[in-house]
């Protein structure tokens, strides 16, 4: 039985085959409480899927598997991705699963599905992610929840009354999600403020990175780069966070918002930190044969990936520093150096995050003591970094960022390979809550 082919003729392969990015689609990202206020995670994910279906002619097609996720998730959305698939133009016989790895969710769906394709378990897949900070779940307080659950268990009227008597006025206040790390009580911005100060990253350096992100994104829109990567939604055709006309002077005027009570000088502002954002993204991946037989383009291959986590709880390492460990491990496994990459897509959770990672890779001390390397990895060529803008300009709907990065980088690699008739390579790096990071390599041939 094990060797018999299924209805589509897919067979497990002994030799790994390639998984390639065919294309991507996202809805423009909207600042929270803006254009997508009335749209749920399921609505936005469906919109991103339908745009992808329309672009690649996937109507009624049974895709091997769809994986997506959301970081801020309602309990009713236990099957968010499958529900979005049922509501989309894809075949209702397309299976789906939800994944959650904080801000690395989107990239991890690409990695997991690419691995299934490489193993021959599926031929095609859609990876994605969505998040809404506007339509965030609000839960009842722990006190009310405990009473309601106990009420459910109570059998007699007497027991029910005794249970109800435990309710206190403060129990009626709801719990809204926040960005505080559960084990430290510090927000992600405050954690990054500690790391930013520890690495002596200046306000000016952060503002410059932010300015570059906005300018690069504006230029990418200008030359139509996103025309085949985006579907307008709810009246929005561009990321609403983009400030094409921002300047260093404007950025320098903003007051610090994070790290004001942490002792060191506060350098992180709303201008060099990502805002809360709503949005969704989806990436179509498949085997080379799938792309060829369906007359679909091949943008880039998903080569390899590495996840890392750091011990941040008592400050041994910064909360968002895991990519600084994941990247060197991935480079070592692939036998590569920074000079081997044409593009770097480092997710801009905060400008300070990107600058701390790069400072760590340039630091002899960090590379020797923390990574066990004889010499530092070296500097990243800034002209290859986030060249079409990144999260500081687009905004960051947590789980949707991975799909944006993969589709953007895959298209950049294809363009460069076609223009220069040579293979190209790019690196994606995403930090995540809980002290995690996921990084991946894409190549175009």
């Amino acid at each position, binding site marked *: 039985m094990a060797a018999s082919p299924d209805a589509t003729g897919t067979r497990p392969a002994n030799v790994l085959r390639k998984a390639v990015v065919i294309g991507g689609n996202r809805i423009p990202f909207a600042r929270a409480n803006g254009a997508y206020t009335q749209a749920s995670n399921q609505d936005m994910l469906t919109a991103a899927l339908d745009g992808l279906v329309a672009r690649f002619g996937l109507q009624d097609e049974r895709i091997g598997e769809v994986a997506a996720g959301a970081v801020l998730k309602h309990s009713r959305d236990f099957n968010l991705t499958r529900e979005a698939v049922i509501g989309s133009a894809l075949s209702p016989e397309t299976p789906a699963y939800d994944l959650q790895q904080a801000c690395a969710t989107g990239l991890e769906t690409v990695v997991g599905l690419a691995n299934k394709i490489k193993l021959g378990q599926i031929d095609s897949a859609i990876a994605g992610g969505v998040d809404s900070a506007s339509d965030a779940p609000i839960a009842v307080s722990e006190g009310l929840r405990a009473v309601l659950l106990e009420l459910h268990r109570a059998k007699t009227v007497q027991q029910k009354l005794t249970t109800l008597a435990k309710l206190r006025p403060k129990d009626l206040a709801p719990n809204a999600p926040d960005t505080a790390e559960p*084990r430290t*009580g*510090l927000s992600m911005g405050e954690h990054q403020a500690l790391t930013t100060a520890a690495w002596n990253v200046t306000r000016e350096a952060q503002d410059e990175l932010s300015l570059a992100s906005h300018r690069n994104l504006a230029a990418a829109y200008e030359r139509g780069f996103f025309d085949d990567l985006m579907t307008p939604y709810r009246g929005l055709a561009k990321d609403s966070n983009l400030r094409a006309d921002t300047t260093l002077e404007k950025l320098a005027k903003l007051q610090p918002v994070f790290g004001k009570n*942490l002792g060191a000088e506060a350098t992180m502002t709303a201008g060099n930190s990502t805002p809360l954002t709503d949005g969704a993204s989806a990436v179509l991946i498949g085997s080379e044969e799938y792309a060829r037989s369906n007359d679909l383009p091949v943008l880039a291959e998903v080569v390899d990936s590495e996840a890392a986590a750091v011990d941040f709880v*008592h*400050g041994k390492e910064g909360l968002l520093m895991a990519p600084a460990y994941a990247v060197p491990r991935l480079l070592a496994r692939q036998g590569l150096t920074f000079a081997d990459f044409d593009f770097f897509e480092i997710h801009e959770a905060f400008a300070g995050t990107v600058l701390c990672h790069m400072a760590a890779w340039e630091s002899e001390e960090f590379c020797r003591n923390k990574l066990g390397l004889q010499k530092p990895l070296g500097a990243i060529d800034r002209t290859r970094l986030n060249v079409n803008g990144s999260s500081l300009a687009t905004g960051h709907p947590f789980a949707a960022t991975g799909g944006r990065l993969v589709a953007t980088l895959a298209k950049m690699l294809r363009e460069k390979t076609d223009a220069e008739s040579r293979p190209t390579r790019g690196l994606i790096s995403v930090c995540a809550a809980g002290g995690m990071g996921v990084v991946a390599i894409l190549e175009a041939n």
Partner: protein
Amino acid sequence: MSEVILGEMPTLSRLYLTAASTAARHKLGVGQQADQLPAVRHTVDGVHIAPERVSGFQQLMHGTVRDTLPSVFLHSVAFPVVMSVMTRPDFPLPLLGMVHLANRVNHLRPVHFAEPLTVTAWAEGLRGHHAGTQVELHTRIEAGGETVWEGVSDYLAKAVYLPGLDKALRPERTDFIPPQPTARWRLGPEAGREYAGVSGDFNPIHLSAVSAKMLGLKRSIAHGMYLASRVLTSVEATASEPFAWRIDFAAPVFLPATVAVRIHDTERDGSWEASEFTGWGERSHRLHFTGSVNTLAG
């Protein structure tokens, strides 16, 4: 020392009432104030722990509901026995208004919640303090015939000076400069009451602003053992028994409060060896407590 076996775990609320009436009688000049510690140990045998009580404690501390008992939970289990010593008519210091200065504990092995415990408490080390008189309350918890937990709490009776005890010199004040925090605790006005709910220690200074004012405080204050337990919960994933911990209290934490905390772990040969900790007011920059947790293994 003589031994007194108590038939059952004393009730804390009753002991607080005893303490209040003793205080009132002393104010009226009734009753003889002793000037030495009673040479007696109080013991309660066969102490059983309800699992719900442990769960409630673990949840309040943001900890994991485990089958083994948190170190500070064991302190709260033993506390009524300690109180029974401190409310004896021949105990020389007034219980109400006493200041908790420090705690030192050796937690010698994991204790399962279903193990029956024997709790013994006594007082030692009556001595002068620059602000009054200081005393050590000792606690020993045994399970299966061995000591599993032993602790010493230092208390200060402010402005009480007993004959024959020299007043200690006031130690030099050192300025506190806050280090980089690793955590922030937001403690609401209910933090004291919530700890009373899981620890059984309904000391009025922790319950509400009104009850605290009756005892001369401007607002209610967080229980020192709550603060200690929050820290210990944060290291429970790495610190395994046997370990020793201590906490020294500085300025009280008036509720509500935002406490900044730094916990710094040190390793030896790749294994956890110790965690040093400091807590201070995030905005006031006043030092609230310092302490450490150290492995007692090999």
